[in-house]
Every structure is written in structure tokens, then in C-alpha cells.
């Protein structure tokens, strides 16, 4: 069985990253934005793992565990902010919370 070439993984990862970035930049719903950030991180994770396999090195896989831990923390904080925001303003739309401006 022929292995899937590394370049395919990298291509998929890049596509996932761009979708994530587009989601952060274009969507207004905070929940979606958080999910998009998560997608960008996972795209990076995929790159790490693909290259780890390609280079037969475990360093990339170890790095992925760290990213997942950070992502868990980030989601915990992000969701907490989201819940508070919803409680205070009854909204999840980021454009409604633009009072901190010059």
C-alpha cells in the first residue's frame, strides 16, 4: 500500500488554515470565531504531524500535545468570556461589543 505523500497533508493543512483564518476574519458570531481559531490550530497540528512522519522525528508530535493543551485552555477562557458576554449584552455578535475604541 502506498503511503499518502506528505505534500497532500501539507496542502490539506493549508486549506484548513485558510478556512479557519477566513472564519476568524469574516464571521461575527463569537462561537464560530472560536471554532475557526480551533481549526487554524488543528491545521498547524496536522502540519506538525505530517512533517514528523516525513522526518521520522517525534519532536513534532510532542509539540502537538502542547498545542492541544493550550487549545483546551484557550477554549475554556474563550467560552467563559462568551457566556459572560451573552449574559451581559444578550448577544454573541462581536460587532456589538465595539465600545473600546478611539
Amino acid at each position, binding site marked *: 500500500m502506498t503511503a499518502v505523500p506528505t505534500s497532500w497533508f501539507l496542502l490539506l493543512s493549508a486549506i484548513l488554515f485558510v478556512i479557519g*483564518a477566513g472564519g*476568524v*476574519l*469574516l464571521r*461575527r458570531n463569537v462561537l464560530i*470565531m472560536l471554532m475557526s481559531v480551533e481549526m487554524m490550530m488543528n491545521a498547524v497540528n496536522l502540519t506538525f504531524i505530517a512533517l514528523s512522519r516525513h522526518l521520522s522525528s517525534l519532536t513534532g508530535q510532542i509539540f502537538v500535545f502542547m498545542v492541544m493543551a493550550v487549545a483546551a485552555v484557550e477554549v475554556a477562557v474563550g467560552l467563559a468570556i462568551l457566556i459572560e458576554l451573552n449574559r451581559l449584552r444578550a448577544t454573541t455578535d*462581536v*460587532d456589538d*461589543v*465595539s*465600545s*473600546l*475604541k*478611539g
Partner: protein
Amino acid sequence: MIIQSIWLAIAFPLAGLLFNGLLGRRLGRGVVGIVGPGTVALAFVVGLFAGLDLLALPAQDRAIVVTLWNWISVGSFRAGMSLLADPLSVLMVLVVTGVGFLIHVYSIGYMEHEEDRLYARFFTFLNLFIVSMLILVLADNYLLMYVGWELVGVCSYLLIGFWFRRGDDPQDPVRLKDGELVPVPANLNPADSGKKAFIVNRVGDFGFALGVFLIWTTFGTLNFADVFGAAPEIASGTVTVITLLLFVGAVGKSAQLPLYVWLPDAMAGPTPVSALIHAATMVTAGVYMVARSHALYALAPTTSLVVALVGVITALYAATIALVQTDLKRVLAYSTISQLGYMFLAVGVGAYASGMFHLTTHAFFKALLFLAAGSVMHALGDVIDIRRMGGLRQKMPRTYWTFVIGALALAGFPLTSGFFSKDEILAKAFEFSPILWALGLLTALLTGFYTFRALFVAFWGSARDQELFDHAHESPGVMTWPLILLAGLALFGGILGLPQILGVDHALAGWLHPAFADLEGEGAEAIHHGLSAGLEWGLLGLSSVIALLGIGLAYWFYVANPGWPADLAVRFKSVFKLLVNKYYVDDLYDLLFVDPGKALARFCAQGIDNAAIDGIIDGGARLIVQGGAWLGRLQTGFIRHYALAMFLGVIVVVAYFFLR
């Protein structure tokens, strides 16, 4: 010996000043009225004992230097806080504290209508003046003298502007016989008058300061004894410049041409101030300074001639203005300028003792005249226009009679104090140059005329303003007793300096002789000048005739033929207008100095300060505010924008690393 403690003469009024200044308001006017005059009386007693001490010393030792402490010591520059007690300075101490004490007492009555606060302030300032004047006359070096010189200027400013809330005082125009109204310039308000006095004095003080600097660079010391000792070895040109610069200071302080303009306006102050500062004492500081520096002036004949000329021209000039003034105090102010001119004539022709003699008698009779005028103002509710008075001699006999004595002394009526001192100056001037004498004699005629014009108009005849007349009353004893004492001094002060031809000693010249001993031909035995006895009797007789003639003319014009002055005014209308407007000198100074000065100040304030400097500061601030507002727009509050900026930033950085 008390003369070693001559500093007490300064310390007593200083204590009074601190006491009245710090506590006077709380302790009430009773205490202030005792402390103010009392400390000056103590200073007078100190001066009296110091004089007795001097008399006990042999004549050549009558100059005691009391060093209190070393004031400034920088490199080779030394100035001691040291006082010089010699016959000249002790005479000044006695005049200042003696006349000053009587005026302090008078002020108790004169200022009785002021609030407690102002009452205490007034006596504080008066004591400050006595302190300053004593520092001036007792100083033993030019620097300390300059300190006193400036301090009396400050006191003058403070006291002229004492009623600084009052506005301009418009004067009624003169209605001529042909119906034309000649406007009389309004009297400046006290605040502006104070400023005027201070600023005009600064011009003179600048010259004085330059003179002191030049003394320092020339002699390397400012000490009187050292300077006068070294003076004969200095080039005469330098001495001339030094003396001229010092004289510029005297011209300012003693209100001579061309810096006399502040003195008439100084009459905006309370009348005791006019009497004490602007007639009896402070304005004579210039004469004292010239007499004190006589060793220098004797070496500079050019300067002495200038001094004499300025003196005699000022004397005549001011007398002509006094002829038409309608304000009683201003008549006296111009006569003060005129009499100061006589004193400068005396010191200019080298008759220093005669100048000091006239200074002393003038202090008596001019203080008396001012206080009497103040008594009239007090009675009439501050009305000072003689055209609204008349007939006051029945209402205020004491004021009237003391004013008569003062007027007689001022006019040089035979055997009064002013007669002897003025005649002595005229005789000395005759010896020097008959032209100066003739001008002086003409001034004496005018003096008799304008003095008695004021007296006849104010006190004789019938009431011109019935309401004012009914209101008038004699002043209280606390005001009339100083008048009576001063009248005694004005009447008999001539005893101090009887002419030699009467066969008695010239007491004041004898007293001053040790101070002027370095001058040849000056002093008790030399007061009998080079004139023959017959000529001297002649001059004496002529002076008497002139004085009587002036008084008689005033009687002729204002009592016998009251219509004449108005006729004359119509006939010589241009001259009359010129005199009423004081030769337009004030207007000329306004045009030449005051207006350009104000324009310059306005340019500096609006052009440089407001526009340029504020523009730079405000512009810088505005730039930062604008820039901040502009940059602040970047912060939109939309997370999307921040995220986009981050992505773009990352792309730029990555692109940079790839394309490098």
C-alpha cells in the same frame, strides 16, 4: 556713649514697623497710634544724644563709624553694614525723626476716618519710611546708601498709592472772563501716581547705580572715607562723570528738571505723606547726597555748574507753574520743587552748609504748610480746590495762623526761618554769579506771590461754596498741636543760621563745619563770605523787599482788585493756558516715552507673548491632540480589524523573510 549705639535710631522705628505690621490690626488703633509715633520719638531722642556726644568730641574726631556686621565680602569687594555718625548725618537724623514725629502725631487725627486695617497699614508704611530714610542718611558707604535710596522710593510708591482704589480726580475747568472754559488736566488716580513716581525715579536711580559702579571700578571701594580720601588723585574727567551720574539720581529723587513730573502727582497720597516724604525729607535726599559727596563735587566744577544751573532753572520753572495751580496741595508741590531747586543752587555753588540750612528750614515750613493744607482738607471733606474755599480764617483760626507763618517763611518774609536760609543761598549765588542770583531773586518774587495767592484765595474773602463753608470746622488738637510746634520752628528756625553781619555765630554752619572741613573756605569762620558788609546788607534788604513785594502783589491782585487775575488771564490767554497745562511737559512725556512704552508693552504682550510664544506652545499641544485623535481612529473596537491587521502583519513579516 550713645553714639556707638546710633543703630538704635533705626532699630526703634523698625520695631514699630514690625509691631504695627504684624499685630497692629488686632490691637486696635489706640496701640498703633502710640507705637507708631512713639518709636519715632525714641529715634529722635537717640539722635539728640548722639548729637550731644558729637559735641563732646574734639572737632576733627566728629565722625564715628559704627560697624554692625560685615554685609558683603566677595573677592576684594567689601560692603559693611556700618553707619556713619557725623554732624551732617546727625542733622539729617534729627530733621527726619523730629519732623517725622510731629507728622506721625498729626496722622493720628488725619487718618481717624480710615478702617482699623488701613490705619495700621498707614503707620506701618510711615515707620518703614523712617527706617529707610535713616539707613540712607546714616550709611557709611554708597551701597548701603543706595539700599536706603531705593527703600525710600518703595515707601514713596506704597504711600502715594495708599488709596489705590480711588479713581481719577477730574478738576473743574477755569472760566475766563470772556466765557471761555480752560480745561484743567485731571489729577491722576493714586495707583497711577504711585507707578509714575516709581518709574520716573527708576530713571534717576539708574544713573545713581551707574555712578556707584563707576566709583567701584575707579576707587575699588564704596566707603565714603576711602573714596573721598582717594578722590584728589583721580583724573578730573572721571570724577566729573561720577558726579554727573550721581546727580542724575539726585534729579530723580529730588524732583528737578527734567524728572520732576512725579512730584505733583505724588499729591494723590494722604497729606501727611506729602508733608513728610514729598516735602520735608525724602525729596531732600538728593541734596543730602550731593552734600555728603561734596569732596567729589568740589573736584568737578563742571558738574557743580550743572547742579547750580539745573537748580536755579527748576526753581524758576516750578514757581511759574505754581502761579496758576488751583489745587492747594499742587501749589505747595510746585513750591517744593522750586525750593529744592534753591538747595541745588546752593550745593552747586559750593555752599553746602547753606544748602543744608535751607533743607532744614524748608522741612519745617513746608511740612507745616502741607499739614495745614491737610487740616483744611480734613475740615472740608477732602476738597482741595482753592476756588471752592474762601473765608476759612474765621472757621479755622489755628490752621489759618499756622498757615500764615508757613507762608511767610516760604515767601522769605524778614526774620522768619526761610528768609535767612534763602538769603544765604542768594548771597552765595551772587558771589558765584550775579545771573544765578538774579534768577533766584525772580523766583523769590514769584514764591511770595503764589504762596500768598493761595493763602488769600483759600482763607480770606467770603465763602465761595456756602455748603462747604458751613461744614468746615477746626481740626482736633492732635492735628493742630503739631502745626503749632512746626509754626514755632518755621518762625524761629532762622536762629540756626543767623547771618554773620548781625554779629552772631552761624550755629548750623559751625555744627556742620567738621563734616565740610576738607573744603577750603567753608564753615563757621568762612560763612562770612567774600562780600563786603555793605553789599551783604544790600542783598539782605533787597531780599526783604522782594519778599514783601511778592506778598504785596498777591494782596493787590487777589484782595484789593480781585478782578485783575481774570483780566490778565484773558489778555495773556496763551501764556495762561501754557501754565495751566504745566508747559505740556506731561503730555510731551506721554507722547515721547509713555505711549511708545505702552505700545512696546502691548507689542510684547500681544505680538510676542500671545502670538509667538503662546502660538508655539499651543500649536505643539494642538498638533499632539490632533495627531492623537487621528491615530485613535485606527482603534475601531472591531476585533475583525485587529485580526486582519495581525494577519497582514504576519504576511508582511513572512514575505520579508522569504524574499530577503
